[in-house]
C-alpha cells in the first residue's frame, strides 16, 4: 500500500513535468514565431539565404509551408530527435554545442550549489537562533547587501581585487594558457586532470574556478540564508520544538534532530529555485571570467541574434530546472512522512 501511494505521487509528478515541458517547448516555438519578419531570415545567415538548396532544405525540415500547428509538431519531432537546429555562430548543431559547454558550467554551478546549501543552512539557522539579536541583524544586513549587488559587478570587483591588485588569482578561463588541457572524460577540467595524475594541472584548474564559484556562492547564499532563516524561525516557534526542550534534550539535539529536520522541508523546496538563480547567475558571471560555459554561449548567441542557439539554451535550462524541481519534490516526499504516507 505504501508503495502504491508513493507510485501515485511519482506518476502525478511525472505527468506535471511532462505537461510543463510541452509548455516550455510551446513557448520556445512561439518565440521563434514572434520574430519580426521571416523566421528563416532570422535563423539563416545572409550567405545561406542566397543558396536555394539550403533554403529549400530548411523549409522542408521545419515544415515552413505547413500550417502553424504542423510546424509545431515538426518542431517537436525534431526536438525529440535531439535536433535543436544549427547555431549560426558556430555552424554546429546546437545540441553538440550544449554538450560542450554544459560541463564547464556544471563545474562552477555544482560546487557553488553545495557550498551555498551548507553555508546557507548554517548561517540561516544561526540567525534564526539569534533572532532579533546582534548576530541576526548582522546576517540580515549582509544578505540584503548580497541580494542587492549586481552579480556581474561583484565578479568584476573580486577580479579587480584578487587578480589586478593582489595578483593571487588568474584572470579567467578554465586553465592557464600554457597548459595543455587534459583529455575530456568527465567534462570537469579539475577531475580530468586529476584522473590523468597531473596534480599541478588540477591545482591550476581549481585556482581558476575559485573566484567564479565565490561570486556564484555569495549570490545564492544571500537568498538561501534569508529563506532558511524564516523557515527555521517558524519551526523554532513551533510547539513540537518547545516540547523537545521540555523533554530536557540537549540544545544541539533539539537543533539537529528537531529544528533542522522540520526546517529542511521548505529549504529543500526552495533549493530548486536557488539552483535556477544560480544558473542565471552563470550567464553574467561566466562573461566576466571568460568561462566557456552555457552562460557565455547564451550571451554570445543572444547578442548575435543566433536564435536556434538562444532557444536551445532556454530549453535546456528549463529542462534542467524542471528536472531539479522534480527531484526536489521527490526528496520532499521522502523526507516528510505526511506526504509519503497520506
Amino acid at each position, binding site marked *: 500500500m505504501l508503495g502504491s501511494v508513493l507510485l501515485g505521487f511519482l506518476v502525478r509528478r511525472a505527468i506535471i513535468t511532462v505537461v510543463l515541458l510541452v*509548455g516550455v517547448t510551446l513557448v520556445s516555438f512561439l518565440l521563434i514565431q514572434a520574430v519580426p519578419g521571416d523566421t528563416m531570415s532570422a535563423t539563416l545567415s545572409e550567405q545561406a539565404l542566397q543558396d536555394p538548396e539550403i533554403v529549400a532544405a530548411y523549409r522542408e525540415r521545419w515544415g515552413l509551408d505547413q500550417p502553424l500547428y504542423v510546424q509545431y509538431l515538426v518542431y517537436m519531432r525534431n526536438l525529440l530527435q535531439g535536433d535543436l537546429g544549427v547555431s549560426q555562430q558556430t555552424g554546429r548543431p546546437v545540441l553538440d554545442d550544449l554538450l560542450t559547454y554544459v560541463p564547464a558550467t556544471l563545474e562552477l554551478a555544482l560546487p557553488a550549489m553545495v557550498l551555498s546549501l551548507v553555508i546557507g543552512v548554517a548561517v540561516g539557522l544561526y540567525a534564526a537562533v539569534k533572532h*532579533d539579536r546582534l548576530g541576526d541583524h548582522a546576517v540580515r544586513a549582509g544578505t540584503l547587501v548580497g*541580494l542587492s*549587488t549586481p*552579480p556581474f559587478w561583484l565578479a568584476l570587483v573580486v577580479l579587480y581585487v584578487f587578480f589586478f591588485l593582489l595578483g593571487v588569482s588568474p584572470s579567467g578561463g578554465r586553465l592557464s594558457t600554457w597548459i595543455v588541457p587534459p583529455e575530456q572524460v568527465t567534462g570537469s577540467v579539475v577531475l580530468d586532470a586529476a584522473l590523468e595524475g597531473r596534480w599541478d594541472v588540477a591545482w591550476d584548474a581549481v585556482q581558476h574556478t575559485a573566484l567564479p564559484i565565490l561570486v556564484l556562492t555569495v549570490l545564492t547564499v544571500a537568498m538561501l540564508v534569508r529563506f532558511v532563516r524564516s523557515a527555521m524561525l517558524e519551526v523554532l516557534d513551533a510547539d513540537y520544538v518547545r516540547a523537545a526542550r521540555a523533554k530536557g534534550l540537549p540544545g544541539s539535539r533539539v537543533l539537529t534532530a528537531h529544528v533542522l529536520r522540520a526546517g529542511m522541508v521548505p529549504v529543500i523546496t526552495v533549493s530548486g529555485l536557488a539552483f535556477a538563480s544560480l544558473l542565471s547567475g552563470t550567464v553574467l558571471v561566466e562573461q566576466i571570467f571568460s568561462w566557456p560555459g552555457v552562460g557565455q554561449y547564451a*550571451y554570445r548567441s543572444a547578442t548575435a*541574434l543566433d536564435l536556434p542557439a538562444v532557444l536551445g539554451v532556454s530549453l535546456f535550462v528549463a529542462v534542467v530546472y524542471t528536472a531539479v524541481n522534480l527531484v526536489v519534490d521527490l526528496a520532499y516526499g521522502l523526507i516528510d512522512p505526511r506526504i509519503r504516507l497520506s
Partner: protein
Amino acid sequence: MSTLPTRDPGHDEAPEAPAADPRADRLLARRRWPQRLRLASVHTIWRQPAVIAAAAILAAWVLLAVLAPVLTADPIAQSPELYRPPSSLHWFGTDELGRDVFARVVHGARLSLPLAVVIVACSLAIGGLVGLLAGYLGRAADEILMRLTDLVFAFPQIILAMAVAAVFGPSTRNAVIALIIVSWPIYARVIRSAVLSIRSSEFLSSSRLLGVGPWQALRRDVVPNSVGPAVVLATLELGNAVLMLAALSFLGLGPRPPAPEWGAMIAAGSRDLSIWWVSVFPGLAILTVVLAFNIVGDALRDRLDPRYARGLR
C-alpha cells in the same frame, strides 16, 4: 549593525499588550488580524533607522535624477580627456570616450528609476489581474492561469528575458517588455494566495451572505485586502527591476549606446580592469538603489504580511 530591527517592541500601541512579542502572542492567544486592520500599523516602519536611511537614499536619487541636467555635465559629450581617474574636475573620472562618469551615473538614474517603475507597474497590472481572476474564479480558470505562471517560472528570469530581448532586438523598449514578460507571474502568485486567504476568511463570506454580488465583493473586500502583499512585493520588485535591467544592458540587450545606462557602463569598464572607476561607480549606484528598495520592502513585509511574500523570491 543593530540598525535593522525586525519588529519593534511597540509599547504605545498596546491595549492588547500581549501582541508586543509575537511569540507571547502565540502563546497567549492564537489570533490573526485580517489584513485590513494591520495596514494601520504601516507607519511604524519609520521607527527603524535603516528604513529612514533607505528612504533618504531613494529620495536623494530621485532628486538627482530630476536635477541631473542642471547639476552635471552632458553625459554624452565626448572629450579628448580619456581614461582620467577620479579628480576634483571629474569626480568619478572619465571613460573611454572622455565622457564624465559622474554625469553618466547621475543621468543613469533618469533611465533606471522610471523604467523600473514602468516595469513594476505593468507587471503588477497584468499579474494582479491574473492573480485576482485565478483566486476569485477558482477551478478551471485558476488551474489554467496558474499553470501558465508555472510555465514562465520554469525559465530562469534572466535567460528568458535575454531570449525575449534577443528575439525582439536590443532596445530600451524591448528590454522593458522582456522584463515585464518574465516578472508578472510572481505578482499573480502572491495576489492569488492573498485572495484565497481572504476568500476563506469570515468577513467575505458574511458579506456574501448579506447579498453582495461577486464582483462587488471583489472590489470591496478582495482588492483592498490584496493591497498589502502587492505593496510589499512591488517595492522589492522595484529593486529587482533595476538589477535585471542593468543585467540586460550589461549583456548589450538594453538601451543602445551612448545612453548612460548603469549596466552598459559596467560592461564598458569591464574590458580594462585598470580603469576601475568606469564600472565601480555605476555598480555602487545600482547597489545603493536596490539596497534601499530592499530595506523598505523588507520592513513593509514585516509589518504587512509575514507570510505571503516569503519564500517566493
